[in-house]
């Protein structure tokens, strides 16, 4: 899965020119921007900005039931965006794509709608120590409601998913396995296909947090054979507030709604209602139509460049960063031991310097990184730290960006007098 394919190197000059924020002027007194926080939210290319702009200029209206031309155009664009996203993740049927605001909303939807119908007291939900809070807290909420219990798959010393521990936990016959495809602060890539295969042998469903993989790796939900998968559009060059929940059609069809309201019903009386078919059942209220259209433009943009090529580029950058960081004394890197299972994100700490101070000093060099627990408190506990500084790469980053990061880290060390 983390195998490096022979791909053509990215045309970085052309790609960077697509992103206005990277080519625009820096505020006075600031060096050119080095943006290393794409794991949090990526920058947007002109193609995505234009898709949203032209939707509002030319096609804006509410979708469905509008018996006029403009509404038909908007409905067509929205449903065609669903098709594009279905193709992007290799779904067999576009009804398996539900538009949501982000990964968090998608996982809350599954945990509550699927969980309320399928979990009971004593049932086991398997998570991992490396999950983002958005793949933990929704399960905490549903566990509280149903009396289900939660166990976590440990990490190996090499900071990877511990398969042996997983196998031993599967013996307890969990109902759900909730796991990240790519870890968001240390970048470990998990073997989802293998995890899903084993989960299915004990009848568990597999819920994949693909927030950090969909922007960076080719995904095919049929090949991975996962039951649910959640992604955030804004991390994959799409608009903020756009995301997708994928679910296998029979599972979605058997699920009760999550939110109630307009658009998700079949028949409503004052004291009861029946519900629409999938996917409308899970899209209550007016959806973010322009953002869905923008997300489809983002998926097209990434597909044209090629996810294999993007992954290869990021891997090259992160390996270069690993080599450069290895030369800096007093700096510790948190990343999987096996470089082939790494993606373009890693954490680090400078001896005795708080991550917020590191990030603030890097910002003085206009190198944008994130500091904190990255919504990974259990992982931070496992690593024995309160917080880390995190750098993440995307298709528009360069080796020059890595050099600027390294220079800024060396300067931060010297400001704090770290040997």
């Amino acid at each position, binding site marked *: 899965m983390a195998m490096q394919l022979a791909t053509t190197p990215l045309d970085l000059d052309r790609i960077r020119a697509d992103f206005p924020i990277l080519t625009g002027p820096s505020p006075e*007194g*600031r060096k050119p921007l080095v943006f290393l926080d794409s794991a949090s939210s990526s920058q947007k290319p002109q193609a995505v900005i234009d898709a949203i702009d032209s939707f509002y200029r030319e096609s804006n209206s509410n979708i469905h039931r509008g018996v006029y031309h403009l509404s038909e155009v908007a409905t067509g664009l929205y449903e065609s965006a669903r098709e594009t996203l279905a193709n992007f993740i290799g779904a067999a049927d576009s009804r398996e794509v539900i538009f949501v605001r982000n990964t968090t909303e998608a996982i809350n939807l599954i945990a509550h709608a699927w969980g309320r119908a399928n979990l009971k007291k004593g049932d086991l939900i398997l998570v991992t120590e490396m999950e983002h809070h958005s793949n933990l807290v929704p399960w905490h909420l549903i566990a509280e409601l149903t009396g289900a219990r939660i166990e976590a798959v440990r990490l190996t010393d090499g900071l990877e998913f511990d398969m042996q521990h997983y196998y031993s936990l599967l013996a307890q016959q969990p109902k759900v396995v909730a796991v990240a495809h790519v870890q968001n602060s240390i970048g470990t890539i998990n073997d989802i296909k293998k995890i899903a295969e084993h989960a299915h042998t004990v009848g568990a469903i597999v819920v994949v947090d693909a927030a950090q993989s969909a922007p960076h790796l080719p995904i095919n939900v049929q090949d991975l054979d996962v039951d649910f998968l959640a992604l955030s559009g804004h991390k994959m060059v799409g608009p903020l507030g756009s995301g997708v929940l994928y679910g296998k059609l029979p599972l979605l069809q058997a699920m009760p709604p999550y939110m109630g309201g307009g658009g998700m019903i079949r028949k409503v009386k004052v004291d009861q209602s029946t519900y629409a078919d999938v996917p409308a059942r899970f899209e209550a209220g007016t959806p973010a139509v322009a953002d869905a259209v923008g997300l489809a433009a983002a998926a097209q943009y990434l597909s044209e460049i090629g996810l294999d090529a993007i992954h290869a580029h990021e891997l090259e950058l992160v390996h270069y960063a690993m080599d450069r960081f290895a030369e800096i004394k007093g700096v510790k890197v948190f990343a999987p031991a096996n470089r082939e299972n790494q993606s373009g994100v890693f954490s680090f700490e400078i001896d005795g*310097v*708080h*991550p*917020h*101070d590191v990030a*603030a*000093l890097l910002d*003085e060099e206009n190198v944008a990184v994130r*500091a*904190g*627990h990255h919504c990974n408190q259990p992982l931070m506990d496992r690593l024995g730290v*309160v*917080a880390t500084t995190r750098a993440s790469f995307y298709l528009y980053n360069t080796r020059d960006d890595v050099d600027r990061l390294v220079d800024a880290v060396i300067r931060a060390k010297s*400001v*704090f*007098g770290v040997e």
Partner: protein
Amino acid sequence: MDSMYREIILEHHKSPHNFGTLDPADYTAEDTNPLCGDQIRVDLRVENNIVTDVAFTGRGCAVSIASASMLTDMVKGMTLDEVRAITKDDLLEEIGIPVSPARIKCATLGLNVMNLGIALKEAHTHEHDGSGS
């Protein structure tokens, strides 16, 4: 651009003033900044309504530690009313560095903890003397 990391911040971070705990203390509180996990505890000794001794301990970024350190110097000899009246801007002026909006919470963590200690103690006292509502 103006750096937050001037000599004075780095000095207070390296060797914070009044670092430790007071036992016994008249006022004690501890709190965490949930955004970054920074943790600070402040102890006060008060006689005749005047702060006679103060100490703090904890872990955090240079901005929160240096700011708490300067705050402890500032409040010694103040009345409790004067301590309560210290505003965010008073403190930032005392620190004298350009604190970015993202770091205001770090800079004010010590002050908030100190005020929490005073408020907790007073709420508790009121409860017991029956003057609370």
